[in-house]
């Protein structure tokens, strides 16, 4: 009975769609040089890129959380005018081509940038081509994912509890930390995971703003890109690592996104 709900023609189309997504990913599994996998993963350049990727993406996820949750709270609860504009600006990086984000960061924080020129002239701080720049690029593209997830959760929250606490004399910040935050904890965790996965995969903004130098700013995706024309087999191995991490994130979040399955 159940199978009749989907017509055969739609099934064929759905099957093609699924194959189109699955086949390229499976192809990497087929072509990865499994016998040399250990050697390739233990190469210095691979280890360095993996470590830089893990380090920068974890820092970016933490920063996204520390700053993104208050932003989500503001967007969900403030009644100021212009908030909808602020929301659009804050989530623009989600749909922006990352390379444009990189140029934007360079224009703001580069040595000749609008803010960057003062940082450099007054404090001798030069951000581009540093690991800090990698983290900044990752936060820029990843934080909106967390903000959106957490804001939605704040909105679904029962305001009654918050109002009750406030009438009983709790300060706005106490309400935020003891009532609002615990209620949206699952969304915060999901947001962190999402921001982390996005940071780990970040390429366009970071290569534009932070450049690529092995052992300093070169993350896994940058290494994969560079290796495609030099050592294709090694680029397959690194791609495999990134696929595993991505699938890991999805598996950890399956309760959230695959509810009921």
């Amino acid at each position, binding site marked *: 009975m159940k199978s009749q709900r989907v017509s055969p023609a739609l099934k064929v189309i759905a099957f093609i769609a699924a194959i189109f997504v699955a086949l390229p990913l499976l192809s990497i599994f087929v072509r990865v040089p499994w016998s040399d996998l250990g050697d390739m993963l233990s190469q210095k350049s691979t280890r360095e890129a993996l470590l830089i990727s893990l380090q920068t993406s974890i820092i970016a996820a933490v920063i996204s959380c520390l700053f993104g949750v208050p932003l989500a709270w503001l967007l969900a609860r403030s009644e100021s005018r212009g908030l909808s504009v602020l929301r659009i600006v804050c989530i623009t990086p989600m749909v922006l081509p990352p390379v444009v984000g990189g140029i934007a960061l*360079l224009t703001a924080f580069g*040595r*000749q940038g609008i803010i960057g020129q003062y940082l450099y002239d007054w404090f001798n701080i*030069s951000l*581009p*081509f540093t690991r800090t720049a990698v983290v900044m690029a990752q936060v820029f593209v990843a934080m909106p994912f967390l903000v959106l997830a957490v804001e939605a959760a704040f909105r679904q929250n029962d305001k009654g509890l918050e109002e009750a606490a406030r009438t009983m004399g709790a300060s706005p910040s106490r309400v935020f930390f003891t009532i609002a935050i615990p209620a949206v904890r699952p969304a915060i965790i999901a947001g962190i995971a999402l921001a982390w996965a996005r940071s780990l995969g970040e390429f366009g903004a970071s290569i534009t703003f932070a*450049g*690529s130098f092995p052992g300093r700013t070169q993350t896994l995706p940058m290494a994969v890109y*560079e290796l495609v024309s*030099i050592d294709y087999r090694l680029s397959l191995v690194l791609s495999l690592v990134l696929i595993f991490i991505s699938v890991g994130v999805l598996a950890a979040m399956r309760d959230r996104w695959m509810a009921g399955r």
Partner: protein
Amino acid sequence: MAASSMANVFTDMQSSFLEDHPCITDITYSYGSSATLAAQIVNGSPADVFISASEATMITVKNAGKTLSVDLFAKNAGEIMVSLTSKFVGRITDIGSLTDAVNPGIKIGLCVATAPCGSLSNTILKNAGSTRGLVADTESPSAEDLVTKIEMGELDAGIVFHSDCVSAQKRKSSKCISIPPNMNATTSYYVGALNTRDVSRQFVDLVSSPAFTTSLQSKYGFLAP
């Protein structure tokens, strides 16, 4: 498809080439590191002509059977390019002054080692008794990318092609510091048709013509083949 160090040359000559060849209505250029372009051609990129900034990258294409005959039409050497906005502009005098040890906080770019400008700078650094790790803060995917980052002032200096530095100097964005002949090295520019179309042959003929190679040397700072 052409080495990015040829970009300004072809941009300049675009209109005159089209005037001389009325049958050709348009030329599309794809610039990048010769190594990246070579990999794209080997993987089936539908280009008509390949212009490489090194022998090695042209050999890659030739060995893959993508071109039959190639012509050497120019050479290029390395040079230190310093951004005029750099705080270190007066303190960069030679290869040795590119390191953090001599100029703390200096930001130096090199082309990625696989690109012709990168392998050129590797040879120069080796001759000067230095290394990539000691000098570079970032690796640019192509010569053009490196030149732009120095001109923008995001990098203080870098080792670029002599011809690119000559053009940048003309734009008054940078100054060039020559590398002593005993340390410097050269790379060779080749052109090869990737098919037998007339337009491809005409373009190759033009690039390897004496008039073109002479203007490369007199106007753009390339060396004689």
